[in-house]
């Protein structure tokens, strides 16, 4: 049963067309078809959030979504954050505040954070914890991640 179907998914502002098997997951589409490997596969069971991307502005787990379901959607991955060699404020804050150690969860953490900040520019520490509840980090103990999101929130409000 090797049927394929055409999809057009706008990833980081660029419309990308491919013929895909319906069972292809969005994360595989992003990594294998588009070779954008900043989006990580962690648990592959919808738990860890390493694969988080934005779909039409909402944070979603790209390992729990078929590419065909994202047909016509706008996806933002971590590769969209840096512009002209300038880190995005969320990236700068994760770096400055040591919001990462191994870095595996970081792309997902940052995209969930951006979804939060788009909705709530002045989140409390509790708001941040709730917004990042679907993203697991096994290194940092989360304290510096919370701090980084608060720093980025300040930067983005000032910008």
């Amino acid at each position, binding site marked *: *049963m*090797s*049927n394929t*179907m055409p999809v057009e998914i706008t990833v980081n502002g660029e419309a990308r067309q491919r013929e895909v*098997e*319906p*069972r*292809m*997951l969005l994360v595989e589409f992003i990594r294998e078809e588009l070779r954008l490997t900043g989006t990580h596969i962690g648990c*592959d*069971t*919808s*738990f*860890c*959030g390493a694969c*988080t991307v934005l*779909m039409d502005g*909402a*944070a*979603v*787990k790209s390992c*729990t*979504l*078929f590419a*065909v*379901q994202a047909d016509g959607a706008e996806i933002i991955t971590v590769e969209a954050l840096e512009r002209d060699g300038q880190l995005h404020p969320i990236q700068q804050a994760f770096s400055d505040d040591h919001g990462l150690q191994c870095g595996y969860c970081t792309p997902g953490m940052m995209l*969930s954070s951006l*979804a*939060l900040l788009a909705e709530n520019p002045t989140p409390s520490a509790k708001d941040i914890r*709730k*917004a990042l*509840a*679907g*993203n*697991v980090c096994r290194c940092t103990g989360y304290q510096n991640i919370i701090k980084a999101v608060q720093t980025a929130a300040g930067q983005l409000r000032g910008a």
Partner: protein
Amino acid sequence: MYPAPFRYHRPGTLGSALKLLAELGEGARPLAGGQSLIPILKMRMDEPSDLVDIGRLAELMHIRQEKNRVCIGALATHARIAVSAIAGEIPIIRDCAGGIADPQVRALGTIGGSVSIADPSSDWPALLHTLEAEIVCQGPSSKRAIKINDFIKDSYTNSLADAELVTEIQIPMPPENSGGAYIGFKKAAPAYPAASAGVQLTLADGNLCRDIRLVLGAAGPVPVTSRQVEQQLIGQPLAEKNLSQAAEALVELSDPPSDSRGSSEFKRAMLRSLFMRAANRAMQRAGGEKITGSHDYV
């Protein structure tokens, strides 16, 4: 992990989706938000020949009040329900919708999908008992409403006929002086609760119980409810003593399995404690207090 191969269909209307499901027969599954189904397919616990993607059917996305009832389209996501006016008016709905899994899952997961999958640990089937919800099931040439308790037959088993879909959840508006609360305990946000409890009640003068619905979730193959235990509280003033007795009677009926979320004994202890907390919060809300809260996780 990849699911086994399947054919994919994306009909444009509910009518064509129902027709297609009927034509494709028993190998076909509807795909809504996919947040339960896709993990099941990836683990190859199910290998359907066809997926019928109903996820974009705008006619199933409504959340509205019609006279004395709330009508929630099957494709309303947990995230949308959590911030809807309905959730503002009936706090127990917000407890549930805002507490399911994590933001990413709530953005895609739907109420219709959740009740249809009938996972024994999922929140909506338990919650909907407390509101006496009816599930509207539609087939190519039929439409019926079934009480939630009749809809959920067993673990992962609903009472949908072939080619039937859940299209709407109908909830009667609670009367004046009502309040409810639903609390689940989970080890981490993305997990299902290890245990949950819901209480929806209506108070008469003082703490006199005019009406009450109780439920324990993740406590056996289907939500644990008991009309008998509820009736023992009706007409009585609600207090620590009779609520503890009700908790004990419900826990007696529960059968939580020992698994990675905790031993059976641990879960029973959690069920008792969650029930008492939910009952107290329900009473406070019925008394007019505004209290936010949902699942607990560490």
